[in-house]
């Protein structure tokens, strides 16, 4: 295709957009609306996956709390016993003082609150690292049988639940998006149909003079592409600022504690922008192709 022709196509596409502004706005609105719903779902899912993922990498180990008032040699022997369990890579001892120090660190600026404690309420513990996550169930079971072990903090349930919820949200979300996407395609195809009717005579002449079908189609495809693209950009902007707002809210409420599990707004934007743009344009192109299916036959 020649550059001049491409210029003609793009220009015609914009003329179409402008000539029926009302319908163009409706189309853009419908794309934006469906992508907004997608945005809500996708940010939820991405965050849940993120938590699950972080959980998994953070919890390829478990914390084994020991009973209070154990002698040092008892603690040591529990250590050797833990190491001898099959599936355990290595163990690390964390005294209650270490634990408190760690907690202070993770609380950051609020760490001074812990200074007021009279007694350290945290137990001594071992951190047990798995050779592989799959074997964790049996390892945990074995650990629970060791005397002197008070409690095993084990996060697999939480992680599994999170993944399940993410799956559920994803599934209902997909269903909702499919319906909204269809509506968007329908509205766009109607918008294009109006342009198409306005240019019916022109198209007839084009066909008689020997314009190829794609020569005729391109301006409409471009019109649809722009409807979808503009809709996607609107949705992206709204999702970005809404998400940033929500993120800051969470950050302010729960301090850094929670925030590290939540994907920051910029990273989120990176993850979803390509998807939104592709989906928006895809919906637009689909809408225009559907509207032209019948009209192009001569």
């Amino acid at each position: 295709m020649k550059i001049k022709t491409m210029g003609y196509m793009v220009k015609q596409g914009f003329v179409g957009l402008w000539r029926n502004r009302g319908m163009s706005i409706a189309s853009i609105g419908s794309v934006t609306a469906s992508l907004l719903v997608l945005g809500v779902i996708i940010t939820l899912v991405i965050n849940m996956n993120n938590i699950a993922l972080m959980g998994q990498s953070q919890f390829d180990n478990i914390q084994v709390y020991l009973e209070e008032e154990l002698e040092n040699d008892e603690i040591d022997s529990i250590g050797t016993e833990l190491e001898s369990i099959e599936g355990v890579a290595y163990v690390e001892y964390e005294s209650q003082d270490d634990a408190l120090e760690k907690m202070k660190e993770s609380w950051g600026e609020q760490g001074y609150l812990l200074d007021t404690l009279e007694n350290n309420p945290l137990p001594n513990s071992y951190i047990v690292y798995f050779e592989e996550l799959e074997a964790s169930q049996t390892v945990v079971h074995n650990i629970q049988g060791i005397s002197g072990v008070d409690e095993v903090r084990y996060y697999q349930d939480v992680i599994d639940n999170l993944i399940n919820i993410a799956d559920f949200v994803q599934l209902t979300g997909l269903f909702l998006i499919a319906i909204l996407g269809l509506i968007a395609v329908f509205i766009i195809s109607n918008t294009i149909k109006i342009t198409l009717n306005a240019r019916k005579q022109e198209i007839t002449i084009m066909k008689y003079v020997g314009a190829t079908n794609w020569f005729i189609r391109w301006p409409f495809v471009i019109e649809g592409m722009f409807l979808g693209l503009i809709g996607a950009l609107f949705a992206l902007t709204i999702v970005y600022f809404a998400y940033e707002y929500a993120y800051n809210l969470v950050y302010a409420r729960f301090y850094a504690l929670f925030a590290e599990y939540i994907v920051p707004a910029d990273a989120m934007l990176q993850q979803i922008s390509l998807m939104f743009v592709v989906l928006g344009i895809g919906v637009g192109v689909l809408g225009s192709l559907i509207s032209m299916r019948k009209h192009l036959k001569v």
Partner: protein
Amino acid sequence: MIEFQNVGKTYRHEVVALKDINIKIDKGEFVFLVGPSGAGKSTFIKLLLHEEKATSGKIIMNDQDITGVSNRNIPLLRRSIGVIFQDFRLLPNKTVYENVAFAMEIVEAKSRDIRRQVPMVLGLVGLSDKAKKYPNELSGGEMQRVSIARSIINNPSIVIADEPTGNLDPDTAWEIMRVLRHINQRGTTIIMATHAKDIVDIMEQRVIAIEKGTVIRDDKKGVYGYED
């Protein structure tokens, strides 16, 4: 250059529009297509334009069997055919010049060629001074001359005119016929469907009469042969 061999066209529901048509039209001929409405003239023209496909027989155009041409190649075939309609079919929001140039633009002609070719063809149909006018500022005859200019701008070997004088008064009709004759004398084959008895009788060109889907008459220097 155009040959119909036992061509038939049956629409859905067994409506027979054309049957067993055998016609040969040579390069540079001027052919009138006559016959009552609904006799098959339109279908004949549609077959020439590949708007419809023949259901039997063979159509050869410019030494090429185009009976089973693929949809993809139809646009390319149409570029060798110019079309003129009874209702002109000009684009109202484009000037005379733009209407003609449009036909070149959509076959992706070079700008330089467009700038050279359009004024030349407008001169040929006698509209050089109307280039900047819009269709609603023109008379019927002038509009039809614009559409003739458009039909020949890409140098087709065949021009098909579907009742080109149908909407025009007799004087203007003759004006159009002179233009068509002129184009014909430059070597372009012209096939013109018409109900204009006077024109057919006076021009003394080949006349093909179609009735009930078959060719009932094909005379070298024919007459209209129907009472209006």
